[in-house]
């Protein structure tokens, strides 16, 4: 057992921690570039809905008319910033399937890395949203016991890859 000065070493553990697979050094795959279009398109839909709500409201309610221009401007600015963030943060989206676990990194202002050990998986689903299908993509959804917070939703892989990964994981852990 190697000695370290800080208290971050395990004193009575039978394994050498540094010889374990390192989470921080996992080589990850980038997601499919087409996902960027899916993300932009789906946020665009939200944007259109917001814009139309504002236009309708400011037309119907007399008192709100004066705020129409400023609110449209704010929504446009927020949308532009959001799209910019999506583009910038797109490179952070990546995933890895290791022999014992599956890992997904994503996030816009933060980088969220979720790791699920394969033997903790309860079931797997493949979701094809409208936009995802347009680009031949799919979302692999992985569920563990526990609440929705632990679910891993891996977007941005092709339909074939999603099927392949599902087969792979199911074979490994033997769930039906």
């Amino acid at each position, binding site marked *: 057992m190697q000695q370290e000065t*800080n*208290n*971050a*070493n*395990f*004193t*009575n*553990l039978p*394994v050498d*921690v*540094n010889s*374990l*697979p*390192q*989470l*921080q050094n996992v080589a990850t795959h980038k997601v499919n570039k087409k996902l960027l279009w899916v993300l932009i398109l789906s946020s665009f839909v939200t944007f259109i809905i917001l814009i139309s709500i504002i236009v309708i409201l400011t037309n119907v309610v007399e008192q709100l008319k004066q705020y129409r221009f400023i609110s449209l401007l704010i929504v446009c600015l927020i949308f532009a910033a959001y799209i910019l963030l999506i583009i910038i943060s797109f490179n952070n989206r990546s995933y890895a399937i290791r022999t*014992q*676990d599956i890992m997904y990194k994503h*996030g816009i*202002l*933060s*980088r*969220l*890395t*979720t*790791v*699920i*050990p*394969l*033997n*903790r998986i309860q079931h797997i689903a493949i979701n094809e949203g409208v936009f995802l299908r347009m680009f031949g993509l799919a979302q692999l959804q992985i569920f*563990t*016991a*526990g*609440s*929705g*917070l*632990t679910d*891993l939703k891996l977007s941005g892989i092709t339909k074939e890859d999603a099927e392949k990964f599902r087969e792979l994981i199911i074979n490994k852990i033997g769930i039906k």
Partner: protein
Amino acid sequence: MLNSPQRQSSIGVIIEIIYAGQKTLRQFWPLLILAFVKIKNVNLGILITAIILLVALIVIYGFLYYRNFLFCVEDDGSFILKRGVFSKKKVSILPEKIQQVNINQSFIQRILNVYEVEIETAGGIEKEVKINAVSHNVAMEIKTILLEKKVESTAETEQASFIKVSVQQLLIYALSSGFFKSLWIVIIFLLALYTNAKNIIDKDDQLIDFLINKGKNHILISAVIIPFIAVFIFNFLRVLIVYFDYTIAIANKAYSFSYGLFNRKDTVTTKSKIQLVIISQNIIQKKINLCKMYIRQFSSNYLKDTKATIHVPAMTSQNGQFLLQDFFNHGLNIDAILNASKYRFSSNIIKYVIVPTLVFIFINQLVYPINYFAALIIIYIISVTAILLFDYKNYKLGIGENIIVKYAGVFNETRTFIQPKAIQAISVKQYFWHRQAGVLHIYLHTAGGDLIFKFVKQNEILPYLNYWLYLVEKE
């Protein structure tokens, strides 16, 4: 005895009739109120006939429901239930699907001295598997037979030991936990009173004058002490009704928690189902050596599943420690303690001191150009900074071979325990402005909730994350 189809205890007829009546009332009450309000000059004879007819229908329905309600436990341990009046239904539950058997008693059941047996299944596909009225012996027999195949020993075995919560402890709990709550309510009450009085008396000076000269003692008594006592008594009664005679039975691998004054609740859990345990003490409770505990069980959705959390309102710290040791097989030894990074303190200072102060000053400048509240701001800054400093000092992660503990809280100290083997998934979050500093938030997900530790140093925690993953994956 239970292997042939049988009815509930004969007094169950009354229970079923009452329940049928309750159900009817619950479904038709808007109609009844409408009828009561709208129909003015009604023939009394018709009204009475209608009521008698309705009651007769309910009685017949309840009676038929009782007659048709049959249950039995087959030799292989599966539970069969047949019920229904108009449409008959047969439910059969395999022994491996049975999660828990709860024995409860509502107020009516208590009067008639019968018990309700509720069977919880995995996945919760069958919601209503309930027997409404059986004697205590039958209830216990059903429970033991059904759980025999599940657990080697239920909490009712002979070598069980007990922890009881006394009325005195409940009183202290109500007093100490309600203290801050009551304080807030009284402050809000006083503020409301003040604004109202101001409206009535019109001028500040006059009000102050009035307070000082005339009503000083009366105001103090009526505005501070009475609401305080009222809030406390209400709180105590609530606690007493819900948690009266709280008994924890500890057997080999199972625990049973039973409590309640009118509605007696009985929940059984097993060691393997316990995922996450929270123990907390506020400063008053700490002084008098009392703590409370939340036990979160394995659940497919712990956020919505209220039954998944067991709450022990009060017990001595020693009993709390004893239960913890028992839950985690005496594996509470901690080898290392990780402190939060200083970023926790500085980011809290920004969030709770700098931003509110700037906002306050900005608004203050707009409203009153002269700085009225400078002293108030200074008091706020000093006290909040002190609290945040304690928060930072108390926020720690303890790590042992079989346990992970999060310590947190200033006025209310909490400890959250999970076992590494209970981890379902691990998430790590890093904001881009924390990347340079190497600070992370970690989320250890279990099937009973998450242990979240924020602002931990990356190089300190990563070896542990790798190790926990290794532990889970090598299973």
